[in-house]
């Protein structure tokens, strides 16, 4: 009999779910029948070798592929609570991007001031009130753990910040619009270990408010940061599960070969 009383974890709610998703670049089938859940307020990591399709899959969520010709979605990604299929042609990608933000591999602050960068998402929604924007910008910069470093130079150029600061600024920019989900595309691969550590710490904090989907080629990062992990190879999800299972006792040999470095 258990001697201590532990409350069972609440079963996680489903934030998004892809169903039989195929994706084509022209005639090349980059994603094959991907069906995978993304749980709310949890961090889900996508790992796999180069070219396995993890970034391609990530960029389906906010319709980034629509910017380039030759793309084709086949299948669906449903976003809760309204269960809308974000890939459907009747859904406006702009609306999708207002619900799902993205942070990129190379920090990409605009050549504008810190304030303007963070406020940009709100500006494109038509917010003009300076006081409203100030509050939101401050909240976002605090949530991104960079407020103390930039509070006295909000009007300075964002590109003058260090790499790690720039990436946290981009995270603040993504957070300012209070999105439902944030996509991280290898957010720390261009950063030094200390900046990487602070970003990982940050992801652990923001997941309480936002659902996180992160692509990383650093397995230890996936192990540290995520609650759920999917291993992908050649456009398919080979295995999906809770991170501790994937890293201690994976079900598929391919998964184990990859994470133990026997891949090749």
């Amino acid at each position, binding site marked *: 009999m258990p001697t201590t009383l532990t409350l069972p974890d609440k079963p996680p709610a489903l934030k998004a779910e892809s169903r039989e998703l195929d994706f084509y670049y022209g005639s090349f089938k980059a994603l094959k029948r991907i069906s995978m859940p993304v749980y709310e307020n949890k961090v889900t990591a996508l790992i796999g070798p180069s070219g396995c399709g993890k970034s391609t899959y990530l960029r389906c969520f906010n319709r980034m592929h629509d910017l380039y010709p030759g793309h084709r979605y086949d299948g669906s990604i449903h976003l809760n609570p309204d269960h809308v299929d974000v890939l459907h042609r009747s859904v406006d990608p702009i609306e999708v991007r207002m619900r799902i933000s993205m942070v990129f591999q190379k920090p990409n602050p605009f050549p504008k001031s810190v304030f303007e960068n963070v406020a940009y998402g709100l500006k494109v929604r038509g917010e003009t009130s300076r006081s409203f924007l100030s509050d939101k910008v401050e909240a976002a910069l605090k949530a991104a753990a960079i407020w103390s470093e930039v509070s006295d130079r909000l009007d300075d150029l964002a590109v003058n910040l260090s790499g790690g600061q720039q990436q946290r600024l981009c995270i603040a920019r993504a957070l300012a619009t209070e999105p439902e989900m944030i996509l991280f595309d290898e957010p720390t691969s261009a950063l030094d270990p200390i900046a990487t550590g602070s970003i990982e710490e940050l992801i652990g904090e923001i997941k309480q408010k936002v659902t996180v989907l992160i692509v990383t080629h650093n397995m*230890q990062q996936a*192990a540290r940061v995520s609650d759920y992990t999917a291993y992908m190879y050649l456009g398919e999800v080979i295995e999906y599960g809770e991170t501790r299972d994937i*890293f*201690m*006792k994976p079900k598929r040999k391919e998964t*184990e*070969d990859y994470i*133990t*470095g*026997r891949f090749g």
Partner: protein
Amino acid sequence: MTDKHLSTQFDHELSDVSTHVLEMGGLVESQVAQAMYALAQFSSETAGQVLSQEARVNAMEVEIDRDLSMIIARRQPTARDLRLLIAISKTIANLERVGDEAARIARTVQRLINTGVSSRMRLPVGDVSFEADLAIASLRKALDAFARLDCDKAIEVIRQDNLIDQEFDGLMRKLITYMMEDPRTISASIDLVFVAKAIERVGDHAKNLAEQIIYIVKGTDVRHNPVEAIETLAR
């Protein structure tokens, strides 16, 4: 440990540490065998040899632990590799205690000899030797199973531990009878009880080793479960 890592250095490190574990296992196995030989022959010299090995066993434990720490720090192992290293850490602790038991047996032999006990007393040394043979065989089988990461063999070892326990119980009853029959044998009999207990513990350590093997191969922690449950868990 059959598939190769991308890093051959990592492969070497793992196979080196496994080899050392088997070396240590062989050493403590021979210690136990030697200690039992010393008991059977009442040989103070052999007992002395067993004791002189103790420092080496302890040193091996420390060394292997240090190698383990270094591998974990450098390689950030996951899944099977991580389970292997964790299991080895526990295994060498068990082996070290087997060495301790062997040393205890040897010291008991020396005490018996010093107090003038000899083969003249009709002590059930043979029974103790029988129990010891079971335990040593168990240990050898467990080490074999470790070398081959053989789950089925490991389960046999676990099952065999029950036999060893039964033998111990039988021995206890016999020794109690001896003590009741001839009070002069009490001192020596109690010493034999200690020896029998030590051997029973050797069997337990072999069982622990087997449980670790199942953990490495299947990823399931089967400790503190009865044999039948283990067979199901290890499927």
